[in-house]
C-alpha cells in the first residue's frame, strides 16, 4: 500500500524570477500519478523570493513544497543544489522524482541519481503506472516506443521536456504546505556558475511559431540548407531540424525538434529531407497540418504526414521559394 513515503516528487525550477512552464506541467502530471497511487505530490524548489512561485505550484496540484530561498541559489549551482536535493530525497523517500529536461535539469538529474544510486530515464514522453504500481517510462526509438522501468531502486527518476504534458489549470483554492529549508552551513565550491548570459535569438521562435520548416540530414549540402532557411524566412516560419541534421553539422542544437529537443505546436509543419524518425516526430505531433518533402517515395515520413511531395528537395525548395517570392510581389501589387 502506498504510504506517506510513496509520494511523487518534482524538482521545480525558477528562471528569471518566474517558474519554468515545464515545472508546472510536471506538477500537473505528478498530481495525476499521485492520485492513481493514492499518495501526495511534493515539490522541491530552490531559488530566491519564492513565495509566489510556491503558491503557484500548490495551485498546480502540489500538497507540499520544500523551498530553499537564498541569493546563494541564484544562479543555479550544481554542487549546492545536489547537496540540498539529495538530503531532501533521502528524508522524504519519494517513489517517483520528475525533473524538467532544462539545461539545469539535464545536469542535475544525473548528479542526483548517481548519488542516490538509482536509475534515471532521459527525456520521457509518456509516464504510466503499471498494474504493479511501477512507473513505466516511455521513450521513442527505432520507429517505436521503448518502455523503461526501474524495478528495485528508488526513487524512479525521469526527465521530461517542456511541452510533453499540458500545463495544468491552476486552482488558487487548493491547499498545501510550504516548508522552508535551511541551506547547509558549509557548501562545496569546486564548481561555480559565475553568470548566465542571454544571447539574441535570430528568426522566429520555434515554440511560438505558427509555421515551422524543419530540415533533416537529407536537406544538406550548404546550398540546400540555405534554400531551406530562405523558405523559412519567406513564410515567416520557425526553423527546426532533426538530430541527424545537427549531428551532420548543418545547424545548431538549438533548432532541434523532438524528444531531446523542442516540442512544438505549429499550425503547419513542413519537413524537408527527413525520414520521419519518431524521436523527431514526437516533437511535432501537435501540428495541425503536416507536409513532407522527400525524394524517396518509400520514406517512412510519408506515413506520418497529411501531404507528401516526392521530389528532391534541392529541386523543389528553390522552385517553391521562387513561386512564393512571385506571389509575395503579386499580393503586394493587389494591396
Amino acid at each position: 500500500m502506498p504510504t506517506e513515503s510513496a509520494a511523487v516528487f518534482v524538482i521545480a525550477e525558477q528562471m528569471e524570477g518566474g517558474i519554468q512552464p515545464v515545472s508546472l506541467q510536471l506538477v500537473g502530471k505528478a498530481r495525476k500519478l499521485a492520485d492513481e497511487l493514492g499518495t501526495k505530490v511534493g515539490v522541491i524548489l530552490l531559488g530566491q523570493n519564492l513565495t509566489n512561485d510556491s503558491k503557484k505550484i500548490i495551485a498546480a496540484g502540489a500538497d507540499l513544497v520544500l523551498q530553499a530561498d537564498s541569493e546563494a541559489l541564484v544562479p543555479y549551482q550544481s554542487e549546492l543544489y545536489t547537496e540540498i536535493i539529495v538530503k531532501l530525497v533521502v528524508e522524504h523517500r519519494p517513489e517517483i522524482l520528475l525533473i524538467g529536461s532544462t539545461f539545469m535539469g539535464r545536469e542535475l538529474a544525473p548528479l542526483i541519481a548517481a548519488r542516490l544510486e538509482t536509475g534515471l530515464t532521459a527525456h520521457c514522453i509518456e509516464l504510466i503506472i503499471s498494474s504493479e504500481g511501477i512507473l513505466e517510462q516511455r521513450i521513442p526509438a527505432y520507429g517505436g516506443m521503448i518502455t523503461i522501468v526501474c524495478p528495485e531502486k528508488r526513487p524512479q527518476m525521469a526527465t521530461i521536456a517542456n511541452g510533453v504534458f499540458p500545463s495544468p489549470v491552476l486552482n488558487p483554492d487548493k491547499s498545501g504546505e510550504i516548508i522552508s529549508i535551511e541551506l547547509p552551513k558549509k557548501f562545496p565550491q569546486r564548481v561555480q556558475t559565475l553568470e548566465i548570459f542571454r544571447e539574441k535569438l535570430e528568426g522566429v521562435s520555434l515554440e511560438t511559431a505558427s509555421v515551422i520548416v524543419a530540415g533533416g540530414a537529407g536537406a544538406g549540402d550548404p546550398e540546400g540548407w540555405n534554400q531551406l532557411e530562405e523558405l523559412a524566412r519567406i513564410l515567416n516560419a520557425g526553423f527546426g531540424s532533426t538530430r541527424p541534421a545537427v549531428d551532420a553539422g548543418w545547424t545548431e542544437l538549438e533548432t532541434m525538434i523532438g524528444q531531446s529537443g523542442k516540442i512544438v505546436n505549429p499550425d503547419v509543419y513542413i519537413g524537408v529531407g527527413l525520414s520521419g524518425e519518431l524521436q523527431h516526430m514526437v516533437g511535432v505531433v501537435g501540428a495541425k497540418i503536416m507536409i513532407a518533402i522527400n525524394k524517396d517515395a518509400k520514406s517512412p515520413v510519408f506515413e506520418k504526414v497529411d501531404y507528401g511531395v516526392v521530389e528532391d528537395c534541392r529541386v523543389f525548395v528553390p522552385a517553391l521559394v521562387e513561386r512564393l517570392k512571385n506571389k509575395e510581389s503579386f499580393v503586394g501589387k493587389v494591396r
Partner: protein
Amino acid sequence: MLNIVVCVKAVPEPIAASNLKIDPVTKSLPRLDIPLVINPLDSHALEAAFQLKKKYGAHITILSMGPPPAGNIVRECIALGADEGILLTDPAFAGADAFATAYTLAKAIEKNGPVDVVFCGMSSSDGATEWVGPEIATFLNMPVVTMVREIVEDQGDEWIVKADYERGYRMVKIKLPAVITVTRDLNHPKPLSFSGIIKARSKEISEWNHENLEIPAELVGLKGSPTVVTEMTRVESRRNVKLIEGSLQEKVDRFVQILSEAGVV
C-alpha cells in the same frame, strides 16, 4: 603536464543506425551489420584534449567500454595522437545502462592513476542520455560542467568555461580535477586519414575486464543497471497521406494552394 582521460564510445554509424526499426513481430531490433564509428560528440572531446596537449603538453588516455571490435576506435584515437588506450571489454559489461556504464568507467579511471581532466561527449548518438559524464564525476567525487561549448581559461587548476544554457550560456569556474562534457561547438575535430586507419591497426591497447577492475560482476552490465528495458513496440502512423503529384510546377502550385488554405500565405 596534464593527465587527460577521454571517454569514447564506439557507436553504430548514426545514419545507418537511424534506419533500424523495431520488428513488430519479435518486438526487438533486427541484427544488422552496421560499422562502428567513434560517437560524433566524443571526437570533439578528443580534439579538446589534443589542443591542450599542443599548448601545455599532456598525457592522453583513451577509455572505452564495448565489445572487442570497439578496440579499433580506441586504436584510431591513438593514431590521431593519444598516448595510450584502454578498452573495457567483458561479457559481464553487456547490457549496462548509463549508471552501470559510468560506474565501470569511473573504476577504470581510478585504476589508471592520477587524472586532471576527464573529457566526454555530452551524449552518445545511440543512447542519448547525457548521464554518463556527470555520473562518472559523482563516482570519482569530482566537479563537472556539462555541455561545454568553449574553454575560456585553461591555465592552472581553475578553469573558466562557457556551457550551453537556455537562450544563451553560463560562465562557470571549475577546479581540477574535473569532468567536462562537450558540445559540437567546442572545436572542429580532424578526421582520421586512410593511412591513419591503417597505422591504427598496429597500435597496442590494454583490455580490462571486471576482474582487472576488482569489481564484482553484480555491479556491472545488466546486473548493475538500475533501469531495464521491458518492452519495445512498433508505433504505426495515424495520418493518411495525400501525395501531391504532377509536374514540378504543378506540385509547387498545389503546395502553395495548401499553404494558402491554411492561411500561411
